[in-house]
């Protein structure tokens, strides 16, 4: 099975490259694009500490979404929080020795996986049952949900139905750090799970998943409300003044 292992090894190198490279480029692009005017949605904090708090509430609690739509908030919060737990749980496959907090989180990671599926199902159902949301959904919106659901399901199947040899999976990824291809167990469910994860990594920087970095660059959320106290002038706008 070394052929398949080879392919997966290259796939993960490629996916990592695309994910990190793509995201870096995007973040640089966002960071370099000037925001010529102060446009925070008010009432906005008047200090940077206040802005940091506002952003934290957005990232951790999805504050605006909570005000916007309770159902969407419940489902997406379940999904994202589940995803966080699952990701933390998975760290043990990539780190050796496994830090204590990651060891302790293991059982919760399973619940996280379930919460993730339920949340995704709820979000997906809205795309069919709410006419407004159906109207705005494009094929890619459905496909991304399908992809995430499939990742979650294959993961849970490995946990509850057909176990995989997790030690060897861990060795495979440890091998990748040393640029060595260690044989991957040839379980179809595992292979599918990994394939889908790689796919997710690859589409990340080119899809709506960009909302993750986007949130941090949103001027309506991350700007300090102090335009009377300070001039806020973009380089291209400054040039107008010199004319």
């Amino acid at each position, binding site marked *: 099975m070394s052929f398949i292992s080879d392919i997966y090894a290259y796939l993960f190198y490629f996916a990592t490259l695309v994910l990190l490279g793509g995201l870096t480029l*995007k973040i640089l*692009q*966002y960071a370099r*694009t*000037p*925001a*010529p*005017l*102060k*446009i925070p*949605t*008010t*009432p*906005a*904090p*008047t200090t940077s500490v206040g802005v940091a708090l506002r952003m934290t509430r*957005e990232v951790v609690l999805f504050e*605006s*979404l909570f*005000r*916007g*739509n309770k159902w*969407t908030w419940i489902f*997406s919060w379940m999904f994202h929080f589940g995803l966080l737990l699952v990701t933390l749980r998975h760290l043990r496959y990539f780190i050796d020795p496994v830090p204590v907090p990651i060891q302790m989180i293991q059982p919760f990671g399973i619940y996280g996986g379930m919460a993730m599926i339920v949340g995704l199902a709820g*979000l997906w159902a*809205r795309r069919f049952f*709410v*006419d*407004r*949301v159906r*109207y*705005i*959904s*494009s*094929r*890619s*919106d459905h496909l991304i949900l399908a992809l995430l659901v499939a990742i979650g399901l294959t993961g849970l199947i490995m946990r509850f139905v057909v176990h995989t040899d997790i030690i060897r999976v861990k060795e495979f990824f440890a091998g990748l750090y040393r640029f060595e291809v260690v044989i991957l167990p040839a379980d179809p469910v595992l292979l599918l799970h990994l394939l889908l994860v790689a796919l997710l990594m690859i*589409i990340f920087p*080119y*899809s*709506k998943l*960009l*909302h993750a970095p*986007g*949130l941090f*660059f*949103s*001027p*309506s*959320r991350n700007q300090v*409300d102090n*335009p*009377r106290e*300070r*001039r*806020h002038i*973009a380089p*291209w*706008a400054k040039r*107008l003044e010199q004319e």
Partner: protein
Amino acid sequence: MAKANFQVPELKEYAEIPEIEPGIMAHSKPFKSKPEFQEALGFPGELVEDWQKKAIDKMGDLLGRYRSLRVYLDSCVKCGACTDKCHYYLGTHDPKNMPVGRQDLLRKVYRRHFTLAGRFFPNLVGATDLTEEVLGDWYNYFHQCSQCRRCSVFCPYGIDTAEISMAAREIMDHIGVGQKYCNEIIGKVYKIGNNLGLPGPALIDTLEGLEEDVFDETGVEVKYPIDQEGAEILLVTPSADFFAEPHVDGLIGYGKVFHEAGVSWTMSTYASEAANFGMFIGSYDNMRRVALRIREAAIKLGVKRIVFGECGHAWRVAYSFLNTLAGPWDFLDQRYPIPQHICEFTHDLIQQGKLKFDKSRNDDKVLTYHDSCNVARASRMGDKPGGQFDIPRAIIREVCNHYYDMDEETIRDRTFCCGGGGGLLTDDLMEVRVKGAQPRIEALNHVIQEKGVTHMAAICAICKSQFTKVLPYYGMDMDQIVSVHQLVSNALILTGQESDEPDDEPADKREDKLASEPASQSTSAAA
């Protein structure tokens, strides 16, 4: 009830989210700008050749200039949280008036030309070329957005459709497809100094009339000065304040407040307009040009402070952008906010106990307050977040006995737009305006039914003009909308004022004078 050749929405007891009716507003569009108006602003006169390419180029240019545009076009996850937040969707049921639906009109072209996914898999991600049909949709639906930012409050990423519709209008202006109402008005500011095109002598005449009215009413000589060099304060106010009802009552109020404060003040014939329609068309250049007039006037008149009158988007431009666009303001007195809102000014005086009120003079009214979008969601007053909600309310409570807020879901930063902002206050968009006003009127109707509210106060010239025109469609009276400083003016007891009893209706006289003004000026061009 005003006549309409379209269905005026019914007011319901509970706000409802309507089912979508695709295309129902596809017919609605404002008049296109003529070449002469376009050119005055530095835009091509008519649709240019190879407009597709030029539009895409302009889009690329804006993507490089505005982080908001770039991030907002990338970040939407189609969660739908904004879909039921736009008053135009709620009133018209057209899904392209859902904020995300509106954004997508631009986003799908963005995807096609600026993203890998859209270049290679357009069908998968909903990307399309810029066709004539798409351009048509842009023109129609980006002129059914009042840039009120209500959607941005609820979006998990703060995606602000106002930014997107400003960009779309900027792109269209650059290929020669402008909107008549906005562009003609900006042209008037350049030529004459204000949106209504009122020349200096007309302004002076009006102000003399006001002085007489106030003297007749109070026996106190309150001055309404203009172009007075060396005055301490420059007042910049929407030109509607010079003529239209109820705006002018607000202007009378500002004058009385300044009088009581004992400060010297003036207006300027050169910068006789607070409104800045450059913002509505998303044009930094034009917004800057309009803002610079205020700077020039301030320097020429040698003032120390700048105060803005009651106008929503003017206050947004003043509060958020003036320092950036036309600063630095180091020649002004730094002890005061630059610029300052008239409500901040009045509120300060109230706190210092310098104003004496007889609240009972507003006893003929039971009031509520309409938070204007640009004040509520894009500016501030005072030094604490949320001052823009508290200060006007504090003033109103100080000058009247009966005040009730509308439903919590429809005020403060969740306030509903009047339906006429963002350059939509034109008669050719009457249907959109009436339908878009529905959520606000519904909330108003609620407090009318339950609390016996009779009047709604506002601090935005567009809101005032819009409600004056639109309330009758819903069976209400046009004079149910009032200025905050009109209430101040009613209740304020001037030092040396002879009697507490207000004389018989001096307002009558003003109305006579108003009646001689062309009606369209006072309503459709007010800002």
